[in-house]
């Protein structure tokens, strides 16, 4: 009984000093696409709460298979992002930042705008002047708006692609 009392006192002591009995770590993910969307529900039909830019860091709050509930702005805005838009690697926009200098491995770090990038493409174009990128650029403009897609789904009696599990 005495041992138990001592044990309980020790636990209370630890709690009083705010020492966690287990550690709760924050997990961050990076946006790995040019433009991401944070949605109200784990579905591409969910309304867009915020736009995310390439390299943005988000805090993981909830993991629901293919969809992740994340927070930005110090937790002020919370919403759902599909996992294919996110990376566990930290996406660094400039070489020579502290992360790079600490020698983080490439499994932890990705460099935005490095390696195969617009500059390399320009050099490649220079060496291959017969290759025309006009229609490569034009086809990028063929984005479908969400309301167009909804109308397309409805008209063709196609199921909405929501909550897809990996």
């Amino acid at each position, binding site marked *: 009984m005495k041992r138990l009392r001592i044990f309980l006192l020790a636990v209370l002591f630890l709690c009083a000093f705010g020492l966690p009995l287990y550690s709760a770590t924050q997990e961050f993910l990076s946006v*790995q*696409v040019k433009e991401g969307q944070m949605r109200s529900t784990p579905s591409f039909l969910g309304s867009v709460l915020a736009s995310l830019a390439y390299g943005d860091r988000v805090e993981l709050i909830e993991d629901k298979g293919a969809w992740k509930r994340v927070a930005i702005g110090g937790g002020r805005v919370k919403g759902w992002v599909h996992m294919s838009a996110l990376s566990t690697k930290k996406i660094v926009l400039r*070489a020579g930042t502290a992360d790079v200098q600490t020698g983080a491995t490439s499994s932890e770090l990705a460099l*935005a705008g*490095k390696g195969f990038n617009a500059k390399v493409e320009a050099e490649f174009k220079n060496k291959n002047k017969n290759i025309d990128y006009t229609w490569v650029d034009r086809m990028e403009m063929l984005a479908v708006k969400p309301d167009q897609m909804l109308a397309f789904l409805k*008209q063709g009696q196609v199921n909405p692609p929501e909550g897809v599990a990996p």
Partner: protein
Amino acid sequence: MRLPDHADSDRKGDHPSREHRDDPPLLCAGDKKSTSAVSKSIEEFTPEQEYYIGRSVAAVILNKYQPYTNQPANQYLNLLGQTLAQASDMPEIFRGYRFLVLNSDEINAFATPGGQIFVTRGLLRCCRNEDAVAAVLAHEIGHIQLKHGIQAIKKARITDALTTIAAESARALAPNEVAMLTETFGGAIMDITTTLINNGYSRSFEYEADNAAQTILRRLGYDPNGLVEMLVVMGKNLKSGETGFAKTHPAPQDRIDEIQQKLGIKYSRVQTPEARQARFTKAVGKI
């Protein structure tokens, strides 16, 4: 395996192009021994880098084939294709999936690692309904999702690229290093386009893409028989030794067999809503 009744296809014997398909492509990542080593380095490429690789692969393809600039056809393909992509296991890609019809009677389709997908008029003519077009596009999305294009890059070239990129993390590249990276880039583009246009993927990659396609179609409620019917029409239209699909893909009958056996689909005629058929006919019915 019995063919669908309403569309008797000629059972062709082995045609010369089939020998080619048994040769491993430049990098046969379907080979399980090397897969783990290969896949680790593949993961090192970011979606952004895959996007730039994809752009140049697309440009090389468009150097060989003319775009079909018909706006309704391309709009239809993008409405359908981008919807299918959202139902895939990789709905998000650096700058989104984009689709374009190629002005060619050849039966062919190409997918780049950057999300650009091309389909020839010849291939669209093998489709009798939207479900068949959906199957074609879903198959190409499957190749991207499974990173088959990227795996066509020679291993040595991937190592070169990643080594230079790692160096770039600490400092800006010297001019000769930029030149080297550009050369590696050019080599990577060639590895991929050679696989897409000349050699084709391994048989297992093609079946994997068919499998991925079926998953996408099922999620959206498209009839998986659409793919079977398209392959039957293709089987009738493909000429022995023709470049394009015949050279770079398993014979249509082999794919039909694989779909029916592995995926357990018992063929029945495609059932498609009238509205779907109407918009298909309007957009690409007379392509």
